């Protein structure tokens, strides 16, 4: 039973355009959401987070949007750069999972074409 789903395994975007990565979740008790980025042969690195009391959080080129009614979040990268090519994981916590236990999606591989 996958509580956090990333239905697009891969995405290709032209350099300079917007990249939109999507994530859906099923547990309405989740109250904190994260995005991590992973390069090959490295561990994931924290990118951006959002609490359920907000619907948007922005950090430079990265913006995360949360739609609680749809149980959907998305990560926007504008403008996309070749160095953004990586696997992106969304993760969620809260409810019975506690504040430290994050449920991760399966990841979306982003390729930014020069």
């Amino acid at each position: 039973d996958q509580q956090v789903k990333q239905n697009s395994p891969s995405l290709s975007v032209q350099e300079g355009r917007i990249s939109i990565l999507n994530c859906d979740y099923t547990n309405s008790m989740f109250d904190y959401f994260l995005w991590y980025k992973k390069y090959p042969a490295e561990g994931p690195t924290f990118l951006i987070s959002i609490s359920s009391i907000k619907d948007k959080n922005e950090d430079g080129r990265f913006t995360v949007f949360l739609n609680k009614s749809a149980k959907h979040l998305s990560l926007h990268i504008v403008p996309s750069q070749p160095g953004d090519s990586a696997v992106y994981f969304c993760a969620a916590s809260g409810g019975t999972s506690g504040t430290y236990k994050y449920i991760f999606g399966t990841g979306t591989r982003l390729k930014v074409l020069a």
Partner: protein
Amino acid sequence: GAGVSQSPSNKVTEKGKDVELRCDPISGHTALYWYRQSLGQGLEFLIYFQGNSAPDKSGLPSDRFSAERTGGSVSTLTIQRTQQEDSAVYLCASSLPSQSYEQYFGPGTRLTVT
């Protein structure tokens, strides 16, 4: 400063053998987490340590898996009588106790059971 380190980076073992995976967290990070990522799957939570104690072992898949942490620092994940389905990348992360949303991951140990 030094990040999270894991050893070995790769391990090939025969079915039925025991393996030990090591994690050295960032100094001062009292929270430590083990995850595994099987092919095509997301990160699967295994166990969480706060200091030397493990308040949440709920993710350990079977009693063949155990983990310990000594001195509030280094942790070892032991898999006894390995099976082919144990083949995965095992990732360790650490964080400050109040900042579980920002976990610092090591590069992982790729375990292959033949």
